[in-house]
């Protein structure tokens, strides 16, 4: 069984939900990324989404745009990001890592070369934000051929037909974007998310993680009650931004921040609370 599938199966068996933190690789400096990944695991991460910085992150809000800029100042490249995963794997063989980014940096290196290199490094999945399901047939099978799960986004505006088509191309899990807008945007309407999740689950058995708009333990707990996984990105990246000049403090800060979400999620989904 692949790592992502194993994690969701194990969580399900224990009635738990996945906590999926996102950070941008190379932010605030490439030397810190692997340490921060371990800190996220210490804080309770089940899966790590590692952002590949891009000069033109058109689906991201200001927080992650700035993270990309900080990473690119140090020249963080796709190959370096994959190398970071390889280094992470030396001391963590269990936690799945999903690379999240945009198509151009991957194509610049060649899709095949990337897929082979990522597989060798121990990358588990790839989420290419700007690859729509229409464009996926030329791309996704070549990633899957190297054992990489292809994670796709679903949106509040995705029709039933699109949900079906996307679920068909996807493996690992689906990432439901809980609101209209870019990453780091404001509000979360739990009731409408729940309704959409029902619609998605009617069409697929894949786990569904929910992201966008989850900024603290309370919103993480709300989402955990209805989703299979909770993705938290901008809130962590904002913490990195705030302490970019004292990076030695960041591992503890991220562990604590994520730990609070972990505790809130586990409490909200414990058998007593969901009875």
């Amino acid at each position, binding site marked *: 069984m692949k790592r992502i599938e194993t994690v969701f199966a194990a969580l399900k068996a224990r009635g738990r939900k996945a906590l999926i933190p996102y950070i941008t690789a190379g932010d605030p400096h490439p030397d810190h990324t692997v340490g921060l990944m371990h800190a996220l695991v210490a804080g309770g991460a089940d899966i790590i989404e590692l952002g590949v910085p891009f000069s033109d992150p*058109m689906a991201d809000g200001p927080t992650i745009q700035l993270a990309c800029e900080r990473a690119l100042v140090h020249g963080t490249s796709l190959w370096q990001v994959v190398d970071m995963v390889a280094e992470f794997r030396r001391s963590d063989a269990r936690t799945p890592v999903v690379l999240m980014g945009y198509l151009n940096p991957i194509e*610049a290196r060649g899709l095949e070369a990337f897929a082979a290199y990522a597989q060798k490094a121990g990358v588990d999945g790839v989420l290419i934000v700007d690859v*729509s399901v229409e464009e996926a047939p030329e791309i996704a099978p070549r990633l899957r051929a190297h054992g990489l799960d292809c994670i*796709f986004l679903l*949106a509040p505006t995705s029709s039933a037909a699109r949900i079906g088509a996307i679920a068909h191309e996807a493996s690992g899990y689906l990432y439901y974007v809980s609101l209209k807008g870019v990453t780091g945007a404001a509000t979360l309407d739990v009731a409408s998310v729940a309704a959409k999740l029902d619609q998605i689950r009617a069409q697929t058995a894949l786990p569904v993680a929910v992201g966008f708009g989850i900024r603290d333990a309370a919103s993480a707990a709300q989402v955990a009650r209805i989703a299979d996984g909770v993705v938290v990105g901008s809130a962590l990246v904002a913490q990195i931004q705030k302490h970019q000049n004292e990076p030695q403090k960041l591992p503890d800060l991220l562990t604590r921040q994520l730990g609070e979400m972990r505790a809130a999620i586990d409490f909200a989904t414990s058998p007593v609370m969901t009875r």
Partner: protein
Amino acid sequence: MIYENLPDARGHFGLYGGRFVAETLMLPLQQLEQAYNALKNDAAFRAELDRDLALYVGRPSPLYPAERLTRKWGGAQVFLKREDLNHTGAHKINNTVGQALLAKHLGKTRIIAETGAGQHGVASATIAARLGLKCVVYMGAEDVQRQSPNVYRMKLLGAEVVPVHSGTKTLKDAMNEALRDWVTNVDDTFYVIGTVAGPHPYPMLVRDFNSVVGREVVTQSQEMLGCQPDALVACVGGGSNAIGLFYPFIGNDAVKMYGVEAGGDGIETGRHAAPLSAGHPGVLHGNRTYIMADANGQISATHSISAGLDYPGVGPEHAWLKDIGRVTYVSVTDDEALAAFHELTRVEGIIPALEPAHALAYAKKLAPQMQREQILVVNLSGRGDKDIFTIAKREGTELM
């Protein structure tokens, strides 16, 4: 040769184009495509558009015989398609009138636009004022500095100009920001893209609205000359004025076509904005096309004296036309464009924008290689009033 009617149903021009966007943008793009397909052949919509083009934009624009320039250059007879005489002073208004009409039919109350030099921003603000729509224009913070007269024009027209501070603070970043706004405010907002780039259906939509330019040239050439041109020359940034002129001629192999990119300081210096001449295929702003990017796939900063050509991508249809060899893409440097700017100003009494000055600079090389009975049409896509500050500064002239 028979050319396919492109784009295909998925918005592809051969290998290029398509819809490389986050899932959040797919529904609005599909809705736009459906609305456009329903309206484009609707008689009432066409009539309204034609009326606007005639009475508001001032179409048709003249096909002007540049006799003194022809004598000076020697060779082909040079004609200028006078898009500079349109309302707001450039071809950009052809597209904004069309898209704003679509916005109105879709019941949208707010339009957003990206702009580099400010011409598309001004054209968008203009049509928004006329239709009573709220208008927000995204503009790179660098360009806001460089193009302050146009910023003021947009504000006079009631638009809000939002400086974009991310990335290189230029056109490409303004486009990213406009896409982010659209995805957030899609219920009431229509995104008026200014060039033939972006995700499908924009490259098709913007081409169709601009191809009135080429259709007029077909008619005018027949009426004035009794024949069709032998060669067409247009500048290419995103490529909207060029595709507007070229599109009606694509199936006529007797007509040679030349797209002129911004060579900046020279292709060999790396400081240019010529993805077709010196870039490679990649994905930017929702479509696959030729782009300028480094070995790691990060989009490169571009350089051109002309803000309107200062863009690291190009419309996907141009990428296709390059690969099939139907259009020849070349580049000229800042200095060559500047010389052509002065030449047209002095010889014909027409101050061209720096963008079509690139087309003129190449036409100057091409005309002497052609026969005297041959016809060369240059798309004079905009007037140069907006550029006088840039030129004065570069040439060390103090204004005011």
